[in-house]
């Protein structure tokens, strides 16, 4: 059993185990064990990868290739590079934190953790796939549990949001499917067999017309999951209705699939298409960046604010990817990571505040710093991190993106860059608005005066997420080196 397949196998086994459990206590213990195990695997993978990379300079390492559907030349073929390793680690950490945060889930706990782990399985599988078919398969596996997770354990207009989210994402995957098939049928390498394998396709140069046709399909198909304007509207409602852990996993991990897919598939396999279309999508993503930020200023529901800030931050990711250079891409990956941690942290904190005050409307909250100092303080820190304060991961990522996009000469790119850079000011505005109204100021509501402090599992969850943010922010070099090395072959393919 190779080190990567475990990432698919272990969650499945944990799911099987969970199916046997009864009651909250057993369920969460099993889930926790599973989460810890996966976390251990991810960390172990990181070191194994660093060792392997030292001796092995293939694009993907730990590769394994098993023929699955012989006739269609579909393989179960997996492998990782620095990027996927980092994202796997992100997933494992957020999953673990999510399990901690949902320690007290009361309704159908078993099913909750099962769905959560199925989702995780999909994500893991997606990140380790080299084969387009398996990638697509895992993509859908990752998306579909959201329906149950939001629909059953959500709040507010949960059925509506769940349906909307699922349909929009599945609609996107519909577009994506056509794109993938298009790539597949143009992947004949000099009379060879059609293939789904990314690396093999990369060696073929797909006809120009085909690229023009299929790049937008593939790009949009993935980017909808990355909240590309104007296809982002599933995310605010979805996040607002989802239970805490789900928002964390969804915004923290699932939305990263979008950027990752764009990077791995759309950009890597259809470079010419990327060059041709980049201007169009640059406009969209730049709009998304500034638009999300401004929209966030006006919201009063914490989750909506965070959802729109996600639109803004992930717009940054797509924007960076479209800038087609090493630095920007590095920034994009870093941004994916840091946004993953930060937004997960945000949602965790929002969940805690909500579970205590039973409202997410900032206008009805106030002076929380006085009442629940620890949570509020962390919220301030998360806020500062999210507005790109040095010393936190967000800053590193954004700086890479900005420096990268500045490498692009030409007025159009300059203007687009300035637009997205200006987002740092707007971001500050809406973050400080929340901090000012909700955490500072007088306590608005007497019954808030005796709210319970953070419990041990909440604290653990928070710290799990906070440490990486600070870690990346203070010492980014090793991570960005790891990512840069992995980006190298891809950038060469594009340029």
């Amino acid at each position, binding site marked *: 059993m190779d080190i990567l397949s475990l990432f698919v196998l272990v969650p499945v086994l944990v799911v099987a185990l969970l199916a046997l459990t009864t009651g909250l206590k057993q369920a969460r213990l099993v889930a926790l064990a599973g989460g810890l195990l996966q976390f251990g695997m991810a960390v172990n993978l990181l070191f194994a990868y660093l060792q392997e990379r030292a001796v092995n300079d293939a694009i993907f390492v730990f590769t394994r290739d098993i023929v*699955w*559907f*012989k*006739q*269609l030349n*579909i393989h179960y073929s997996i492998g990782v590079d620095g990027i996927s390793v980092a994202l796997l680690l992100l997933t494992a950490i957020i999953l673990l934190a999510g399990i901690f945060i949902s320690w007290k889930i009361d309704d159908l706990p078993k099913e909750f953790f099962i769905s959560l782990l199925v989702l995780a399985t999909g994500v893991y599988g997606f990140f380790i796939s080299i084969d387009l*078919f398996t990638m*697509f*398969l*895992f993509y*859908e*596996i990752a998306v*579909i549990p959201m*329906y*149950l997770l939001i*629909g*059953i354990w959500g709040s507010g207009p*949960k*059925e509506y949001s*769940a*349906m909307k989210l*699922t*349909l929009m994402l*599945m*609609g996107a995957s*519909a*577009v994506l*499917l*056509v794109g993938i*098939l*298009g790539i*597949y*049928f143009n992947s004949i390498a000099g009379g060879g067999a059609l293939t789904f394998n990314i690396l093999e396709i990369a060696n073929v140069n797909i006809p120009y017309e085909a690229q023009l046709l299929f790049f937008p399909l593939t790009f949009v198909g993935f980017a909808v999951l990355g909240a590309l304007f104007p296809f982002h509207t599933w995310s605010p409602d979805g996040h607002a209705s989802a239970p805490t852990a789900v928002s964390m996993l969804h915004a923290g991990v699932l939305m990263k699939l979008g950027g990752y897919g764009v990077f791995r598939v759309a950009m890597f396999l259809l470079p010419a298409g990327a060059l041709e279309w980049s201007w169009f999508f640059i406009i969209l993503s730049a709009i998304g960046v500034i638009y999300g930020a401004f929209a966030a200023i006006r919201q009063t529901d914490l989750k909506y604010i965070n959802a729109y800030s996600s639109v803004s931050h992930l717009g940054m990711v797509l924007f960076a990817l479209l800038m087609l250079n090493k630095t920007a891409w590095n920034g994009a990956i870093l941004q994916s990571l840091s946004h993953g941690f930060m937004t997960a942290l945000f949602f965790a904190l929002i969940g805690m505040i909500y579970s205590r005050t039973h409202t997410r409307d900032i206008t009805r909250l106030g002076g929380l710093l006085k009442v629940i100092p620890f949570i509020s303080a962390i919220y301030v820190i998360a806020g500062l991190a999210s507005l790109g304060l040095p010393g936190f991961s967000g800053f590193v990522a954004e700086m890479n993106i900005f420096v990268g996009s500045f490498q692009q000469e030409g007025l159009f790119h300059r203007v687009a860059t300035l637009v997205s850079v200006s987002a740092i000011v707007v971001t500050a505005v809406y973050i400080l608005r929340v901090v000012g109204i909700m955490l500072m100021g007088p306590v608005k509501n007497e019954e808030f005066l005796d709210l319970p402090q953070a419990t041990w599992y909440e604290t653990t969850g928070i710290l799990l997420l906070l440490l990486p943010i600070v870690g990346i922010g203070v010492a980014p070099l090793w991570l960005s080196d790891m990512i840069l090395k992995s980006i190298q072959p891809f950038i060469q393919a594009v340029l």
Partner: protein
Amino acid sequence: MDLNSFFLMRHELLLLVIILLFVTAEIVIPRKKKGSTVHLAILLFGLHTALGFLTLEESSLFGGMFRTNSLIHFFKNVLNIGVLILLLQSADWLQKKIEKQNRGTEFFTLLFCSLLGMYFMISAGDFLMFYIGLELSTLPVAALAAYEIMKRKSSEAGIKLIFSAGLASGVSLFGISMLYATTGSIYFQDVIQVITTTNLTVLGFVLFFAGLAFKISLVPFHFWTADVYEGAPISVASYLSVISKGAAAFILMILLFTVLKPLMQVWENLIYVLALATMFTGNLFALRQHNMKRFLAFSSIAQAGFILLGLITGTQLGTATVVYFVMIYIFSNLAAFGVVQAISQKTGKENIVDYEGLYRTNPRLSLVMLLALFSLAGIPPVAGFFGKFFLFTAAASEGYYLLVFLAVVNVTISLYYYLLVVRAIFLRRGDNPVPHFSNQLYMRLGLAFTVIGILVLGLYSPLYDYIYELSGVFN
């Protein structure tokens, strides 16, 4: 031809024997004991199914009127398994029927006759055999649809089915007569030599095609479907939607890929149009159904539309994907109908609203339903995903990207209404949810088979490759 070449018709002969057995059973077994015939049926048919797997070489009889080959043989086995599962699922209900209303064994007789018809239909080597098979497979089902003699809806279903069937067969016969006029033969191997696209052949083909389209219930020949499904007993509806549709799709594929190959440039456009019409109509109607059976009826219409995506190619890949998809579809739909059956016969509830809160009372059934719906909607990792993906691959391989795109849009629409059911079962709590109950052994077996099918057929790839090899026979 010597005697043992008769054993090429093993399926048919065995089934015939069973039918005769039941006819006699009708006479010899006293009324009180009729209930036990259910076990007999399951036993015999299980045996028949098992024997069906014995290999046999491909050949043809009666100067080509009856032919068989590995793919046909394989497909007959698939049909057998389907019918067996169907029997298992409806055993409990049948037993009650027979004992309460002291009915005879006609249900089995008719069911097996219809199946026999299918056998002949798919091994038909000429239009006559094909026609007889078609009718033999349709008429008994009409009787079965009217099986619930006390229910008006049942008779209504029967009438609608038999009249529509009569019309359809009439039209298609008229078409066949024209084909006969142009080609001068009713034998496929002769027809294929001489047939060309003249106006008359095209007309004849369209008329003939309508007859089959009726059985697969393609738009606009689908109207009977929903009403019949709703009125007929669930197991009959299930049979119609699964076995008869599957068989019809299969024979249509055979005809298109072999006999009518010369008309390809006609039928590929025809199928293009019908595929879109069928998918959209099926989905749009399914959106707002309240009755489970009607809902499944329209969903099965939409599924038929997807099948056409494989037919349009006329290649080996197309054949393989169609057979593969039909097989998966049989299992998925049987699972869905099985759950409906189970709930209906315990509580008599058939509306989606009644399913609210089902998960909290009957988690196992709900999970089966979930798998079935996901498989129908094409959600990984269950089989339906692979089936659909491969169908689309087949269509795309011939460059029908737009068609694929529209089809995938339809998948999204269909996902919506499948999720409506999931919503009722899992998300809602319901005012008076179905109380917890436990199924009797046969039903459990029936559902278990379907679940295994749904889980295994997709992930276990050698199966597909095997089908692909078999599919070589037509190209």
